[in-house]
């Protein structure tokens, strides 16, 4: 019962963090929310994996966040990078986050019924992250936000995949993909900054 309550709290944290990332403009806040997201995802993964294996997700996620944060911190760019894609209003993004929440709430019971044993919080948390990540990719072209969106989608997938696959190799490979994505993002951020500096 306690674990179930904590799982639902984790889902609430995921909702707040992912919606906050979608709406927020400050990269520091966004990376903080990404780290929080990994914390909640870690708890949901522990529902199906042993603590030791699940902690790989948390450690990798935080390392990825740290890599992105340290790179962004070292760049001399303006904090308020202009967003080039439209529409860009905060209310519009909040509206999108609301739609994703409704879709996740509607789809979670059906998926739970189709694949019994996953657990409603696991399905709901996973769907929320995948949906918010996809929305993130749709409304931005900024490198940091794109990488955050991809990491969010992967986290959502990893939560639900952990329930059906417990191979150590696949856990390792997905951890490597997460880190690789963060490092590729860091590289692109630095290249982008250098090109602007030299222009």
């Amino acid at each position, binding site marked *: 019962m306690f674990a179930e309550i904590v799982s639902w709290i984790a889902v609430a944290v995921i909702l707040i963090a992912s919606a906050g990332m979608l709406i927020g403009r400050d990269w520091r806040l966004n990376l903080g929310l990404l780290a929080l997201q990994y914390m909640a995802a870690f708890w949901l993964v522990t529902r199906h994996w042993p603590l030791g294996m699940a902690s790989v997700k948390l450690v990798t996620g935080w390392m990825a966040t740290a890599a992105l944060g340290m790179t962004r911190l070292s760049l001399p760019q303006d904090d308020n990078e202009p967003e080039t894609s439209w529409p860009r209003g905060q209310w519009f993004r909040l509206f999108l986050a609301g739609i994703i929440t409704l879709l996740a709430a509607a789809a979670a019971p059906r998926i739970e019924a189709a694949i019994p044993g996953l657990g409603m919080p696991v399905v709901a948390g996973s769907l929320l992250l995948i949906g918010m990540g996809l929305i993130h990719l749709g409304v931005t072209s900024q490198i940091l936000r794109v990488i955050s969106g991809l990491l969010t989608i992967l986290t959502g997938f990893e939560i639900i995949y952990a329930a059906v696959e417990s191979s150590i190799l696949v856990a390792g490979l997905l951890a490597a993909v997460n880190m690789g994505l963060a490092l590729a993002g860091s590289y*692109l951020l630095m*290249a982008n900054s250098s090109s602007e500096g030299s222009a």
Partner: protein
Amino acid sequence: MSAPAVWIGIPFVAGAMILFIPRVRFATLAGGIVAALLALIAMFVPIDTALLLGSFSFKISASIQILGRSLLLGAADGPLLALIYGTAALWFFGTEAAGVANRFTSLGLAIISLLVASIAVEPFLFAAPILEMAALLIIPLLVLPYQKPGRGVLRFLIHQTLAVPFILFSGWMLAGVEASPGDIGLTTQAGIMLGMGFAFLLAIFPLYNWIPMLTEETSPYVAGFLLWALPAFTVIFALGFLDRYTWLRTTPALSNAIQTAGLVMVVSGGLFAAFQRHLGRIMGYTSVAETGLMILAMGLKSAFSVEITFLLLISRGLELAIWSLGVSIIQQEKDSLRFSAVRGMIRSYPLAASALLLASLSATGFPLLAGFPPRLALWEGIASQSPNLVFWMLAGLMGLLTSAIRTLAVLVMAPEYTPWKFSENWIQGIMLGVGMIGLLILGLFPQVMHPFLSGLPAMFEHFGQ
């Protein structure tokens, strides 16, 4: 010594070591020699068979265990490994001629080793994250440290990453389909998930918009390498799926879907190529059409499906290498690859322009060139199924031919009395010459590929047997 250690471990370590070689020429030579040696070993040393050299006996075992799973390269994989590393050697030897940074060779070797790992991993479903890791390693090649990343690179990254969840999850669902084959709903869902995964990985219509962007905004040689390596291994991965799951091969709807997807790519790639005014974008759209041809070959209801697919892969590897090398050499002279900028270039870069033209004609299936035999075989295969397919394939190839003729017209459009001269250096001349001769040899004597092709169907126990 195990086969994965030889063909995955050694190139990966060699790639890391080559990174520390400062001179491009030495790095190029080292990378090319390593890849060529690995190709020769794969060709002449059988895997999992004890060999006696004098009093010394040795055997390359087939598998190693990693984290409870195995990496397996069996005896049947030998010809494929020889092909892969042979083609990779060609790419690496061309690095200096193309004027690409020396990390191309080192990262290229690491990428090839990861891609080989993707065909070696058991269960084969786990190849998806390995393919993604290879795609991530390409990023530093696509974007130079002081270059603003373009939209194409970001879209490439997004599409490759989105493929991973689809493929992995479809693998889990396919296991369920095997357990209860009568469950139509589950079968449909698994098919859709798998289709989406491969649509992202292979850049199937309409998800290929990043390809022309990439060939326009990055080094043509690196883009060409990417367009050869990733689709080649993804096709092998897809053939593994078709081989493993009987219902994928036997469901008529799925077979039709594969053929339709291939045909749409051939037609759209060909038509878009016909209207481009940029050499890089033409190369990009042509590669889209060629991927369509491979998908079309995979969907053939024929015992020769695997052979035709691999024949297409071989000619594509050579064509893209020559094409992108020719474009890279021209780009070193002219910053832009637009038609207006490269007009009349054949007078000053005759070898590069000729190579580019031969490669583009080969892609259209022009007789006597490498692309002709596989297209003829594919044509014969689809003609036995439907005349409509033949017509649409012809339409796509006509589009490619139009783009080749337009390129020819632009390259020869030099002002009157412009003198002919060879501006290519000797390395560029040798690489282009070897490549063009290779295109002609593969076109005139396609049977030279027989030793490779005859062994390849053994990789797949059921498909194409």
